């Protein structure tokens, strides 16, 4: 009997192959999915929350934005092509949003035109010319610039660009060009930092190949590295543009905010976002004035989606 007991004590209870985890009770069997389930629940519910938020915002904006056309019976076509805008209900209101659509698109495009050459140049300097210094010093500085609140850019525009415009081009100094410049400066660090990342993603083997066939540094950058990073750089620019398109505050501070169609880049103008932020507080929920502002929001959303679609398409083509 004594001998038997000793033998039993030496042998682990369950099986001769019993592992440490089984002995310590940390693993009960192979059908214990508890930990997996917990992780899955957390991850799936966050993903679900995200999707619900996006769908809810889109739906809400769509429902609210379509009220002006279906409840207030404003003609959709005259809404997006009309050039006269007035929310003054007593003296005959008019809802022509074209000046704002035009304003938004031209601010975005001009901002991209100003920002792209500087941003790509900066990215090339960081990623190709001064690699170490660019990565250690310039990249963090640019990331700080990305984080500066847009109101600061607006303030700088207000105190530097607007007076400059007033002195050199006349008028009040508040105009389309000032808005584009402020937004251009604002998106510059975003574009530069993404473009630098995409240049760094170009494999060194391509640079080696180019040098090995007698390419100079400049030829290598211009004919090999930039084309190889091509669509990623375009994506960086479009991301910057979508940021410019959605910017309200900085633009509002310098663009002049008139409801008229601008006739030159030196004329004051307004954008979809500036009209919404400028007028929303003066309207009551459910009124026509309120509904048309929601419609402007819907247009913003649709155009933002188009930007995102373009980015996705470029990414797809790049991976193909």
């Amino acid at each position, binding site marked *: 009997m004594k001998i038997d007991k000793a033998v039993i004590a030496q042998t682990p209870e369950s099986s001769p192959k019993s592992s440490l985890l089984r002995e310590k009770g940390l693993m009960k069997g192979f059908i214990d999915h508890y930990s997996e389930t917990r992780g899955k629940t957390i991850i799936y519910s966050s993903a679900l929350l995200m999707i619900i938020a996006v769908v809810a915002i889109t739906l809400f904006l769509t429902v609210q934005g379509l009220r002006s056309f279906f409840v207030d019976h404003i003609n959709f076509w005259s809404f997006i092509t009309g050039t006269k805008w007035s929310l003054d209900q007593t003296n005959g209101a008019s809802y022509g949003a074209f000046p704002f659509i035009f304003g938004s698109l031209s601010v975005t495009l001009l901002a991209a035109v100003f920002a792209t050459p500087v941003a790509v140049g900066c990215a090339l300097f960081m990623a190709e010319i001064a690699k170490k210094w660019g990565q250690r010093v310039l990249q963090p500085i640019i990331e700080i610039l990305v984080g500066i609140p847009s109101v600061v850019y607006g303030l700088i525009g207000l105190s530097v660009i607007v007076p400059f415009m007033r002195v050199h081009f006349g008028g009040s100094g508040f105009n389309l060009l000032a808005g584009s410049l402020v937004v251009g400066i604002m998106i510059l660090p975003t574009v530069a930092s993404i473009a630098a990342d995409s240049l760094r993603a170009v494999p060194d083997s*391509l640079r*080696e*190949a*180019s*040098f090995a*066939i007698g390419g100079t540094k400049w030829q290598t950058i211009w004919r090999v590295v930039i*084309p190889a990073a091509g669509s990623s750089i375009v994506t960086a620019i479009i991301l910057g543009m979508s940021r410019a398109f959605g910017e309200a505050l900085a633009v509002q501070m310098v663009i002049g905010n008139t409801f008229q169609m601008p006739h030159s880049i030196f004329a004051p103008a307004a954008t979809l976002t500036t009209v919404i932020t400028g007028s929303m507080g003066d309207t009551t929920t459910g009124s026509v004035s309120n509904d048309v502002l929601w419609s402007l929001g819907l247009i913003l959303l649709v155009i933002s989606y188009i930007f995102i679609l373009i980015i996705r398409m470029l990414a797809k083509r790049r991976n193909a």
Partner: protein
Amino acid sequence: MMIQLDTNIANFTNDKGEETPVQIEVKDVNIFYGSNHAVKDVNMPIHEKSITALIGPSGCGKSTFIRTINRMNDLIPIARCEGNILYRDNNILNPKIDVVQLRKEIGMVFQQPNPFPKSISENIQLPLKFAGMRNKKILKETTENCLKEVGLWDEVKDRLDHSATGLSGGQQQRLCIARALALKPSVILLDEPTSALDPVSTSKIEELLLRLKKDYTIVIVTHNMQQAARIADYTAFFYQGELVEFGLTRNLFTHPEKKSTADYISGRFG
């Protein structure tokens, strides 16, 4: 230009019994990566219109050495070279040498096929465009000639404007060789060109190199001793940064003078 050697190496002949003059003379070359002495006191000739193979175990300095011949090591900031590599009356290692011109005469092919993500014809035309060639007719002719030279023409002639990245690994590597030929260099350096390829592609490249040596001087780094034995006229065995033995391939493989050479080629280490 020929450099007369005072060693008996110059009297070696290639497999056909023809004497080939020395084209590049390597004298007392030392290469450092930071404080690491990667290549030590290498002296060897590279004969014109022949294949010279550099063999040895990993980390023996053979790749470092071949990358010095067209100054690709300049791209590595911590690399430093000493000594002389004489080519056409010039010391390649002279800091005043225009490396861009040098690389137009001494081309290079790498371990991983690295075609540009452009069209097949653009891949071959880019070196010419880099050199300032604008004549469309010459660009087109060169494309065809180079592709024919590497035996790729029949495979790709209908899709010259397709992206080169769509080709198979072996085709890509032959395209890279064609690209290196576009400028009609006198020397082609190949750094383990077949180690990323399957056996069929490898044998195609070997046949190609045997054809090319009629017109070009070829230096090839290889891990594969059989490959060196099959194609090389001269073989250099590197071990721990030193050139242990250099000679005609048939002599080196049949009667190695040094014990470590014998050990390596018989597969005892490496």
